[in-house]
């Protein structure tokens, strides 16, 4: 049996400017997202992905259309009511991690819990569980500047989950991570959707994440379209062996007359440190 629909988006549009200068960043988008579903929003730069997610996260008012989150039409709520919706119903994961620099890992995770009516007491136990589950228990008193990129993003995910929101929005969560950390984060988000029943909407350029998605939405010129199949051309990164889409890969080099595709800059550097080691 299908899980109930958590998010209903109907004819959602967002325009910037007026008259001749009007730009439609999102154009008549409709979609349903069920609990426990992991959806990828992909598309070229400037296609309106972040605008769409910003509207779903109630951070940006749509020009038209409506968004029903857990049965509540959030587009009709006034500004004063939206912070409570964000605190209780939506978790955010950002590309740049966006942790509070002065707070420890544990305090960062607990930060949104203070916004709940029930307060911090219950959240402390949940924070402990999340620290364990995401492999951060030993780092609970560390401050963000001392964490690796992967650790920072795991803290950001734990922070997004502390209030047990039914919807998690992640904007390029693997964008600043090396291939291994990126894969870890992708798997954590997959588990969040599968185990916690949380709907996850993930905006990404990263083709490696496609494998974990239940659905992929292709956004182009602000509208959802069918993705062209010929865009895929899977090859293996010669350093770590990860699958990479040759058409969208950012790290490509010509070496000894051969085109080499890497999953990340780190793998590219490793390769050129000792090309002979990866010749086979």
């Amino acid at each position, binding site marked *: 049996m299908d899980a109930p629909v958590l998010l209903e988006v109907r004819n959602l549009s967002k325009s910037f400017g007026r008259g001749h200068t009007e730009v439609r960043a999102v154009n008549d988008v409709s979609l349903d997202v069920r609990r426990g579903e992991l959806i990828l929003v992909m598309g070229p730069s400037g296609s309106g992905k*972040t605008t769409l*997610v*910003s509207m779903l*996260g109630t*951070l*940006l008012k749509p020009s038209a259309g409506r968004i029903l989150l857990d049965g509540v039409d959030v587009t009709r709520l006034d500004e*004063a009511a939206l*912070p*409570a*919706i*964000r*605190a*209780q119903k939506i978790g*955010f994961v*950002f*590309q*740049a991690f*966006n942790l*509070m*620099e*002065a*707070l420890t890992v544990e*305090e960062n995770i607990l*930060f*949104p819990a*203070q*916004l709940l009516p029930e307060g911090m007491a219950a959240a402390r136990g949940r924070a402990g569980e999340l620290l364990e589950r995401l492999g951060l228990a030993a780092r609970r008193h560390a401050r963000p500047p001392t964490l690796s990129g992967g650790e920072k993003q795991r803290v950001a995910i734990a*922070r997004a989950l502390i209030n047990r929101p039914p919807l998690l929005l992640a*904007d*390029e969560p693997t*964008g*600043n991570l090396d291939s291994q950390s990126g894969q870890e984060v992708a798997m954590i988000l997959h588990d969040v959707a599968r185990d916690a029943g949380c709907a996850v909407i993930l905006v990404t350029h990263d083709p490696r994440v496609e494998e974990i998605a239940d659905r992929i939405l292709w956004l182009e010129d602000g509208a959802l379209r069918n993705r062209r199949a010929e865009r895929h051309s899977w090859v293996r990164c010669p350093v770590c062996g990860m699958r990479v889409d040759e058409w969208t890969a950012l790290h490509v080099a010509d070496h000894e007359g051969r085109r080499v595709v890497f999953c990340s800059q780190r793998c590219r550097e490793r390769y050129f440190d000792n090309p002979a080691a990866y010749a086979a």
Partner: protein
Amino acid sequence: MLRWLLKTLWLQKASLVASAAGVAGAFVLVVILHAVFAGESRQMVAYVRHAAADVWVMQRGVVNMHMASSFVWAWKAKRIAELPGVRAATPILYSGTVIRIAGRTMIAYAVGLEPGARRAGPWAMAAGKAMPGRGEIVLPRVFAEMTGIGLGARVALTGKTLEVVGLSEGTYSMANPVVFVAASDLEDLMQARGTVSYILVDAQPGQDPAELAARIEREVDKVSALPQERFTRNDIQLAMQMGAEIIAFMTIIGSALAAVIIAFSAYSQVARRRRELAIAKALGVRNREIYAAVAAQTALITVLGLVLALLAAWALFPLLSALVPQITLVLTAGALWRAAAVALIVAVVSAWVPARYVARVDPLTAFKG
């Protein structure tokens, strides 16, 4: 929320200390100005307070001593001494004069003392004798320190040369330092034979000073008589009228300076964390929660500045008194309360500046890498 802002403040200790020090500087200015004013106000009535007559008698219509002149026939002192309820009546001559000491010219109030009128003379001595004879003068110790003279030096009081025979304590104020000379010398200078300026009346034990003052005014023609407390209050009021506006103006400047420093530091603290504020808003923190935390942060900087200011003032006061002996500094509870009240107002006003900034931060900024 508050924890986050406080920890962020703590993380930027140098900036916190700089802000608090700036605020402290402004408050030190306010506290020192009040202390100078309080000290000077107290010193201006030092002679009246220490003379401690039960009733002061003077020319009709005169109500105080500072900047006043009074002439009463000398025989009236005897008449008053004979009234019921009067234990003693001590006349003094009193006049504003110019004194030249070691080439420096100073303004002073001279008190002319009859022989044996010790109760109207200096109340504490640093050196020498308290009662000047003819051709002698008792100066405030501060005068001697300022000019580098000592006992035996010769000074000119309105052209008359006198020998310094005593240095008194607590008789200096910037507005009216008091010197003591023989009544006959001052009589010569004032060309006021047969007159006195004030009569210090001591009441019999159990005699109400207000009743005695009323009796003196009834029985003795053309004099005003005021109890000590009323006479002192009149002098203080005059001092307040003369200095209060300047002090109020300086307090406003000091407070405005403190407000600007606090507002600027609170604003820069908040502006530096624009991105984190956007994140907090994106996560669901309301503007009013951030306002409250920013106000608490501003209050913290203010309180820290105020405490630093009080500590600095406490450390500076003895140093200032030693370096500038002519200034009398008195830190009153009223001055502290006033500084605290000013700090509170300053904090509230200052918090408004970063609060406006907070309101304008767009949570969408959190999405921009």
